[in-house]
């Protein structure tokens, strides 16, 4: 009994029990994520084949090679464009849309279900579906546009516009996640806050900016940071639609890394080095955002 009590009081110190709370996740992440991450760091300074049977230390060669590789630099640019198109829409656009669907009436529930549909489709199917309906010649959407007098639009094979189409598809696919995360966050805002705002005569728009937005700030940071990290690693949707074409205009860094490692060359060392560059970039921006987030409390 005594022992149980002291155990409980020991656990009751938030500072100590915190370690028990985070330990399982840290342990799992260390074994299954950090270890491979370190391995990949090791590979980045090596010349390594994909099966890792031949590994030799080459210092920073892979990094100097990366920064003189036009295709890598192009892929960084493409990745940045994707992120700039996607992140604001996911972080801010989805917040507004989410806030408009907070109430649990039938219509909102139906809307949320519709927005969630693309999320539950596999990337493979989304890829073949869009490739088919946006096909330059036999696609139904292309056909519909031409019937409406827009002419024949080549959505998937244009060096100028395909990147926007692919961005749209990426947003189309995951917008629902962000919106629904905002919905759940907004639903957990205390109704008393709205009541107080109402008494002050605040309208819907002011309630949104003065009650909803501050209350779901932590969710906003979550969406912003995860979407940012996610969009800088954009791969799936490109892989299943354009494969990086036309003329590399939609080749993101991870798409390029993947093809370097697996499609041709089998150059795991170089692929890891390029990912490390991306990693450092994402990490730096994340730390900056994180500090901002902590300061906001």
């Amino acid at each position, binding site marked *: 009994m005594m022992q149980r009590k002291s155990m409980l009081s020991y656990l009751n110190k*938030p500072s100590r029990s915190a370690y028990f709370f*985070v330990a*399982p996740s840290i342990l799992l992440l260390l074994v299954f994520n950090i270890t491979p991450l370190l391995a990949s760091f090791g590979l980045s300074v090596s010349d390594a084949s994909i099966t890792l049977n031949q590994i030799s230390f080459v210092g920073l060669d892979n990094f100097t090679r990366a920064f003189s590789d036009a295709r890598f630099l192009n892929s960084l640019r493409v990745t940045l464009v994707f992120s700039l198109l996607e992140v604001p829409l996911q972080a801010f656009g989805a917040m507004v849309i989410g806030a408009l669907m907070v109430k649990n009436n039938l219509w909102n529930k139906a809307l949320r279900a519709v927005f969630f549909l693309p999320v539950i*489709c596999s990337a493979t199917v989304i890829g073949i579906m869009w490739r088919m309906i946006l096909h330059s010649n036999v696609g139904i959407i292309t056909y519909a546009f031409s019937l409406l007098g827009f002419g024949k639009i080549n959505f998937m094979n244009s060096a100028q516009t395909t990147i926007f189409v692919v961005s749209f598809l990426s947003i189309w696919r995951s917008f629902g996640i962000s919106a629904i*995360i905002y919905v759940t966050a907004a639903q957990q805002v*205390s109704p008393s806050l709205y009541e107080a705002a109402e008494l002050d005569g605040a309208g819907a728009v002011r309630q949104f900016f003065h009650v909803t937005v501050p209350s779901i700030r932590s969710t906003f940071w979550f969406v912003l940071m995860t979407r940012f990290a996610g969009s800088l690693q954009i791969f799936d949707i490109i892989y299943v639609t354009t494969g990086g074409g036309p003329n590399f205009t939609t080749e993101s860094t991870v798409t390029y890394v993947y093809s370097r490692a697996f499609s041709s060359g089998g150059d*795991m060392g170089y692929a890891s080095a390029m990912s490390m560059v991306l990693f450092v970039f994402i990490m730096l921006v994340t730390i900056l955002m994180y500090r901002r987030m902590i300061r906001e409390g």
Partner: protein
Amino acid sequence: MSRLNKRSIWGALPIQLLLTVLALLVLIPLVWLFLSAFKPEKEIISWPPTFLNRTFTWANFDTVHKRIDISRYVLNSVIYAFGTTAMAVVINSLAGYAYARMKFVGKNALFLLTLATMMVPFQVIMVPSFLVVFKLGMYNTYWGLMIPRVAVAASIFMMRAAFSVIPVELEDAARIDGLNELGIFSRIMVPQVKSTLVCMVVLSINGSWNDLLWPMLVATDTSMRTLANGLALFVGQYTIQYGAAFAGALISILPMFLLYLFGQRYFVEGMVGSGLKA
């Protein structure tokens, strides 16, 4: 009552119109997919293309049924998705709670370490990850499939965001009542973030359900094939069986959609308020 009236401004026509347009943008391609699953291959690829079916057929579902062992694959997907999620819910919400509401030395460092794990493309750590699972003797086991996928930085982050907005008074009251940290967490805090928790469960199940690459690497035993991988068979290296792929997609979407609808029943408004009153 007045709150309701005021809030119904949100329901103003232009806004609902915008939402409807967005919903149609999402829905129309999916309706095409749905209808195409019931078209013969010849009609799916035809000129001029059709939206509504000229012919209606179950043939694509037949193909799926003949080609893959659906019940076995669904079972594997269920084990993978639900097993992973059951563990994930506990572990990630515990961690999220600690990062949100507890003070401890090394908190920022540990949280950043956690975040760091979502910044490396999986394609790069794929082979090393596989090696870890293999060395631990978990190759071709359900544990090997699930355990590495349990701790997820994004889920921890999401739970952190949800826990961090709960008023501190609630916690203080519980502490005065003599609850320990685990008690505060499970009895007071978790019910406050029910919506987020449900959302996380749905996303986690869905993520595993549609996961292609990881199960393929870790569970090469054909008896452990998941549905997503089974369906990928209709997309050949040279040719695509459009009808079968679409029919397979419908079969795969349905359980997840039902799960979502079921989960949505637990999306509840204003939990914190009612919590304080009680």
